[in-house]
């Protein structure tokens, strides 16, 4: 029996296929709950989850909060503003303080790569990484895979192209690790300054020409281009990025007819993606948001309560 009870979800690198399949399968049941009239379950009744976000986040934090509440857990949001972090408390001490309050899981987003690993060594509660710098964002990787599986029926053998700033992209890394484990054919494309060829060591194919990369693609995952990358040696301008790597309806013709377009959000329309694409029949971008809640419900339930299935009638 596969179980991830008591296990932290730090990243998707090294997570075995069976565990990813388990999360996706339970997420499917959770989605039925999200779609139903009564979303309130008592599966995590008596459990508490803390959202610790050192970086601003609306959608991910909201998604985790909603997921925990749908499951009946108590949730507190812990943000740096006004907290002891600004009084100079160390990361370890902050974690110890929160742990002493008796939480079962800590969902954390932190600017520094590897901080969830540090947290996992410091304290006992389950650590769920909600994004560590440019490293991983495992639940985003899982919800992208969930969406692909939902639309395409499977993941293995699909050509998935990730477009954008890969070097600084935690979404990219979690996608790569998860998709490789699930048997997809992963391609990366973006400017040479934001995509190092050494990434091929991860078992992916690196391109610098968009047309070549998205030829016959089944899925295109479009990443957000951070505006601060412009003009400091990474990119001359957002406009030039758009002309070289922007995804629009014309360019989708290079891919398969039934290509699926994903974007983790928030979108810069007119830079990495055009309105004719993001609101089109090819896009599942809104569905990704809904799936995010379902996947996070599955992750919280399975790490806290365990088991290899879930009874959502409770």
């Amino acid at each position, binding site marked *: 029996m596969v179980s991830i009870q008591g296990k932290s979800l730090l990243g998707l690198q090294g997570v075995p296929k069976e565990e990813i399949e388990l999360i996706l399968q339970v997420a499917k049941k959770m989605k039925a709950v999200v779609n139903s009239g009564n979303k309130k379950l008592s599966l995590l009744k008596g459990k508490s989850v803390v959202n610790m976000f050192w970086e601003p986040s609306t959608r991910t934090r909201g998604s985790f909060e909603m997921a925990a509440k749908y499951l009946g857990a108590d949730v507190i949001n812990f943000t740096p503003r006004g907290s002891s972090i600004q009084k100079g408390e160390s990361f370890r001490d902050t974690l110890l303080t929160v742990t002493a309050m008796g939480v079962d899981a800590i969902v954390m987003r932190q600017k520094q*790569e*590897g*901080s969830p690993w*540090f947290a996992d060594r410091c304290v006992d509660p389950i650590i769920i990484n909600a994004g560590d710098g440019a490293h991983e964002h495992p639940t985003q990787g899982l919800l992208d895979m969930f969406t692909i599986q939902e639309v395409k029926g499977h993941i293995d053998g699909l050509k998935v192209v990730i477009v954008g700033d890969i070097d600084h992209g935690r979404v990219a890394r979690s996608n790569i690790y998860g998709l490789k484990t699930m048997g997809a054919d992963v391609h990366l494309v973006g400017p040479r300054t934001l995509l190092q060829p050494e990434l091929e*060591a991860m078992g992916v194919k690196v391109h610098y020409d968009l047309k070549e990369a998205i030829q016959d693609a089944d899925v295109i995952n479009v990443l957000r281009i951070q505006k601060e990358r412009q003009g400091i040696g990474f990119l001359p301008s957002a406009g030039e990025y758009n002309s070289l790597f922007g995804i629009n309806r014309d360019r989708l013709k290079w891919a398969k007819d039934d290509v699926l377009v994903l974007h983790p959000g928030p979108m810069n329309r007119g830079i990495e993606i055009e309105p004719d694409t993001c609101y089109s029949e090819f896009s599942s971008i809104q569905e990704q948001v809904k799936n995010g809640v379902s996947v996070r419900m599955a992750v919280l339930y399975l790490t806290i309560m365990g088991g290899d299935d879930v009874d959502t009638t409770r």
Partner: protein
Amino acid sequence: MTLLVKGGRVVNPAMQQDEICDILIENGKIKEVGANLSADGAEIFDASGLVVAPGFIDMHVHLRQPGQSGKETIETGTKAAAAGGITRVATMPNTKPVIDSAIIVDGMKYKIEREAKVKVEIIGAISKGLQGQELAAMGAMAKEGVAAFSDDGRYVENCDFMRKAMEYASMFHKVIIDHCEEQSLVEGGNMHEGVVSNELGIKGRPAVAEDIAVARDIFLAEATHTPVHIAHISTKNAVELVRQAKKRGVQVTAEVTPQHLILTDEALRTFETRYKVNPPIRSEEHRAACVAGLQDGTIDAVVTDHAPHEWEEKDQEFNLAPSGFVGLETSVGAMLTYMYHTGHIDLMTLVNAMSTAQAKILGLDAGVIAPGKDADLTVLDLDKEWTVDSSKFYSKGKASPFDEMIFKGKAAATIVNGEIVMKNGEVL
């Protein structure tokens, strides 16, 4: 006071000597080296089964004084040296204030006199305040006896300034030691740039930053006919640049650390700050090139870059923690275990790199076992198995990439000026 070190295997690179013999020490000096020596009333140190080497030197250490006694002090750092078998250290000037004037050197000498367990050489700054703009008072510091000049921790960016520093230092027959990482290429970087940094999403410090810096220093040394010493060399191309420069007769020397000879960036996958250091622990091809450089004499010296920090400073997220970790208490064990017992280098090479060669680079009358010399000796137990336990370090710094590793080989005793300052791990 007389001490007779009996029956040890004397490994003495300066004389290409490797034989079992006795060493008679009187009043802190070596009196005689030979077979079956005896002396009435002498204290006997039984060295049978052990190796006796000229006192090990570590020419790249941060004792952190003045100003950072929370990280380390002359007392704790030199106890750590004694525990590790090191009889003499050279301490770097990136302190608070910077060691860039004669009066600070003088103050250091006063403290060293009273508090140090082993000998301490002082390295003066190249530039005032390590700012890389104005020459520090090299002449005055040379008069106070500094061993060399360095802005360690920072690369001397400006080419013209570095040229003048080399020229000026050469008047006093002192070597310039440079920390070679071109700043614009490593800005914001926290580990070696490569496959692992890409997988971890951590901004890298690319090898090319060191290659460029080392190339510049070699060409300046060549153009000015002055010596330069490359601190903690760590890249394949830098080793090759030094190799070729030596063939051309350039006065360049280089040192390497145990971490760059033994570890690779694979270790960083746990995000533990005890692996964070500059230059960073690099990938296998660079590590292998450093070993080859040590084997063929391209790299002269093995040093630790002992860089203690307070526990709270290292107990942070990886990117936020300061770079550097301790090494004085692990260098002998690490080198014997991973370089000697594995057959990468022989004992003569190891002793040369950890003693004789360093004395030569700094122009010290040390690193040799011969009558008339100071009786500084490092006694090695080649086969002693032990587990590194950083909580037991004499150093204030506890972060070590070698923590919990099992070593084969350890310093059994440290003798400074004929006095046994460490025996079986206990600093006396």
